[in-house]
């Protein structure tokens, strides 16, 4: 300190000025977010309060919400969305964890196998869905051909033509696409488990199942919560695969909420109601995000000191 100079007191006024500097630093990002997230969200909400037919709009208040909630189509789509999301996420986590455990043990061709298993995640969902659309085609598809050659089916199966098989098919494709994401997270988590814990467990006589139960799982608990919550948020708003493969059919069997939103906006030409569905879907995703933030705050492992 310079002799004679007085140390500036750390006053409330100074703090406020520091904060303003902080706001100035993040201002460009705030402006960007306002332009690409907040303004479109505000416009979507504003749209949801209007009856829109093309370029003609009239204010209707919350009537679009009432109308959407009155319609069976919304509740049906919600039910399909919840089934699709819960089954997909459960399979993503189970298979992702299984694959990560297997890949963590493998020593031969480890990198090649990791890249191979990541491939579905690298392919754009719409392109992956188009490939599966043709693989599952009843007359000329490879799946029916192989199953027929193996004697597992007597006649071609219309995979996307029956409600149950269509739902199973789009779920299977979603699982194929989503497993690598969970696998990657789990693999990263497995590599952070201290080897000493496994050694100690082995010395104590723990077998492989017990090591998994008492060492691996507690170490992965936080990542499992993160992965499954992020996956729920990702899958519940997913449209690409269903849009390409079934467009919500047959007979609404695969019409998840995003598909209903798309069909209401672009096929039924009812943008106000579609925006209302979008806002309701956003509330759903936000509620999952809140759960995610709370759970991760509780489950976050203590930092190593």
């Amino acid at each position: 300190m310079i002799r004679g100079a007085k140390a500036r007191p750390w006053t409330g006024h100074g703090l406020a000025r520091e904060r303003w500097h902080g706001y100035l630093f993040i201002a460009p990002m705030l402006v960007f977010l306002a332009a690409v997230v907040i303004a479109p969200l505000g416009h979507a909400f504003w749209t949801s309060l209007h009856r829109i037919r093309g370029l003609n709009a009239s204010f209707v208040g919350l009537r679009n919400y009432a109308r959407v909630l009155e319609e069976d189509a919304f509740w049906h789509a919600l039910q399909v969305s919840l089934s699709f999301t819960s089954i997909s996420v459960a399979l993503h986590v189970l298979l992702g964890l299984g694959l990560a455990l297997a890949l963590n043990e493998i020593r031969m061709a480890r990198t090649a196998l990791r890249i191979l298993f990541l491939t579905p995640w690298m392919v754009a969902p719409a392109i992956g869905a188009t490939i599966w659309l043709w693989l599952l085609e009843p007359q000329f598809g490879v799946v029916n051909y192989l199953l027929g050659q193996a004697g597992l089916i007597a006649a071609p199966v219309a995979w996307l033509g029956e409600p149950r098989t269509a739902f199973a098919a789009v779920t299977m494709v979603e699982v194929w696409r989503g497993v690598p994401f969970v696998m990657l997270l789990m693999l990263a988590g497995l590599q952070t488990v201290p080897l000493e814990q496994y050694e100690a467990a082995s010395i104590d006589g723990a077998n492989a199942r017990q090591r998994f139960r008492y060492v691996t799982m507690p170490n992965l608990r936080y990542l499992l919560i993160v992965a499954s919550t992020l996956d729920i948020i990702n899958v519940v708003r997913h449209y690409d695969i269903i849009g390409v493969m079934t467009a919500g059919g047959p007979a609404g069997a695969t019409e998840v909420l995003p598909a209903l939103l798309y069909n209401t906006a672009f096929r039924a030409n009812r943008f106000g109601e579609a925006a209302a569905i979008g806002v309701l879907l956003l509330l759903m995703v936000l509620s999952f995000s809140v759960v995610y933030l709370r759970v991760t705050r509780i489950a976050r492992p203590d930092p190593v000191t």
Partner: protein
Amino acid sequence: MTCNVKSLARALCLVAIAAPALAQQPITLQWQTANLTEAQYEPIWKQTIAAFEAANPNIRIQPILVARRDHWTKFVAAAQAKQAPCIVSVDLTTAAYDGYLRPLDDLWAKEPADFRAAWSEDMLASARWKGKLYGLPNWGGVYAEIYNREMVEKAGLDASSPPKNWSEYLAWSKKLTGPDHWATAVLGGKTDTTTRVLLTWIYGNGGEPFNADMTESTFAKNARSLEAIKFYLGLFSQEKIASPSPTTTNYLEQTVLFAQGKIATMRNAYWAVAKVVGDNPKMDGKMFAAPLPAQIPNAPTLATVSAHSISSSCPHPEAAWSFIKFDMDKKWALERALKANWMPLRRDLGNEPEIKADPMLAQFVQLGANAKSYPLPHPAWADIAANDIVDAVQKALLEPARLEEIFRELDVKLTKKLKDI
């Protein structure tokens, strides 16, 4: 001072030279129709654009290539942003109701009488909404029954005497069905082609899907409509003479099945013939068309009408109109008819020698003389045709025992929708 005057004079000269060049800067018009991506049409529209640009050096045409299933979505997204392509072919009534299209009456009125006489009043009526003209009908598709001659003859049937009514059609169909092939395909995929084919069966039985002023749905209420629906969907669920997976079968799948000899007959428009030959060149010359088997005398078929319109956000409507007129010229209409199989809608083309020389095209033209135009004139039609009716067809195919109930529910739903505009 002298130097300044010289500089000013030079600048003025430059402006004088550059001004006409700037004024002649070509304007660009976007053109979007669902058909531009179809292989059979591509060489023709490229020639049309080249010829138009050569004749109109101040106008450039930019084709917007978009897959058929995304055509409407892309148009709506652009129209909502008031950036829609200038020249479009879309579901006319819905687009006009939504304010996406510009009325063409002022441009139409300026045309000479002989040009206007090329379109019948009936044809123009299909492009009007609330008394205003929103499009100029360009091409169409008349629906007929198209047969694979080889499969018909192999089944021991006489190709010169195709079925005229449903019982004959059923008898043929049973003979045309084998262990790995079927007589036909029932369409239930999620596009309005499903609705088009369903309507042909309803018309063929003297039924009507709606009342005259389109305020009430009568799919189940009209006994003849319901009978037709039961017969048609029964070809798959009861008679087992239709290919599997009807709920995913649409124009694309139907024509592929036909081209591969998996089905012997398809109910389709003339353009499907070109599509089949494109898929399988060996089918060239091995098809024949016949009137739709029907239960009433002189039953109408269905004719789609595709019209060129100008979007309401187009800044150069006169230039767009000049391209529309150019594309309507006899030369291009004949090219489209003969090479791409788009049926001409100008009434002065039916007697052209080139059309008469093609027996199949001539037959389609003849069938078109007794046809109901499609799409139906209601703002909600795009939604009703591609969603509600298709959903009902899919449900009835999956639960045939509930067919009547499903179509009664459809009537209730559609009647509400028809009134909610």
